[in-house]
């Protein structure tokens, strides 16, 4: 039986890597919710923070969280038409981007650039990059290239929130 597995296992010990990259997934998921929640709070308080579709998405999430009544709020703000399908897709992209960024930061132990070529870390970098591309593509589809400044602000805010209370690997 052991011979059958001998070819599948790693050639060297993973002990040190195991210790450095063990994370608490409950904390990661809790932080994802906190960050998305914080993003929504900021958009509610400051209508200038995110405009157009991104603002609509954040307000739709706010309604889902029970913070506002979307129709009332957007009516007051003179909102344009609201596309449910695209907005839902964008909401998912934001959640994916935050989650994958948290995982990447955790596995990287919040040392920018550290071990980016490590075969164990690279998949998390790719997950985060793919999520960022999807988010960017969806925003462009909704609002065109001119929306790059609000998108950049959104990503900067997420980055700042992650750094505020970094989720480090358990040691």
């Amino acid at each position, binding site marked *: 039986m052991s011979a059958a*597995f001998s070819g*599948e296992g*790693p050639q060297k010990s*993973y002990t040190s*890597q*195991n210790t*450095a*990259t*063990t*994370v*608490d*997934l*409950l*904390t990661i*998921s*809790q932080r*994802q*919710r906190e960050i998305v929640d914080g993003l929504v709070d900021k958009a509610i308080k400051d209508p200038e923070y995110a405009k157009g579709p991104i603002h609509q998405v954040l307000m739709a999430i706010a309604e889902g969280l029970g913070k506002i009544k979307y129709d009332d709020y957007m009516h007051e703000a003179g909102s344009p038409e609201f596309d449910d399908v695209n907005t839902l897709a964008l909401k*998912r992209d934001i*959640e*994916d981007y935050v*989650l994958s960024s948290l*995982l990447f930061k*955790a*596995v990287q132990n919040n040392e920018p650039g550290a071990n980016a070529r490590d*075969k*164990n*870390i*690279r*998949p*998390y970098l*790719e*997950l985060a990059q*793919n999520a960022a591309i999807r988010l960017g593509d969806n925003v462009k589809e909704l609002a065109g290239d001119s929306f790059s400044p609000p998108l950049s602000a959104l990503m900067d805010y997420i980055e700042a929130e992650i750094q505020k209370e970094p989720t480090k*690997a*358990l040691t």
Partner: protein
Amino acid sequence: MKKAMSNTGPKVPYSVQHAPATADLAEISRREMEITQRMIGRFVNDTKYLGEKAAAAIHLSLKPLIDATPEIREIKGNADIFMDAVRDYIHNLLLLQAAGGDIFGMSFKTLDKNPALLVFYQAFVRAGDRLYDATNKLLDTNVATCPVNINRDIDEIATAPAKSRAE
């Protein structure tokens, strides 16, 4: 009071909710590569699985310098997206399993009681949708006629070795 409590709490011990769901991210990466390699073997070597054209495009995606017909080069982009979707799906599946999720038998009631699990479940479902779309695009089919269920095949591979190790 006793009656009220019995309505709110789970009927069975629910360890996931209370214990930290620790996961070794390096081990998950290693398992992802292992499962991806097995799926690649199937995609490329078993030309009946996705068809010869898709198999050749995936081969080209993995080894861009090999010889390929213009027709195959034309769909290389779809094969790239497909392979990204495969890795993404496997990774999210493993994260969900590590968080305590049972991909074959999870109810909405379970998810509702465990917000942490819900986050990873949602990410997994989204990855599944993307894989389905990418498969259809690569095979130039639509959802109704997609000839293979790659999600199911990956689920089976991902679950089986984990069980073997535990034994």
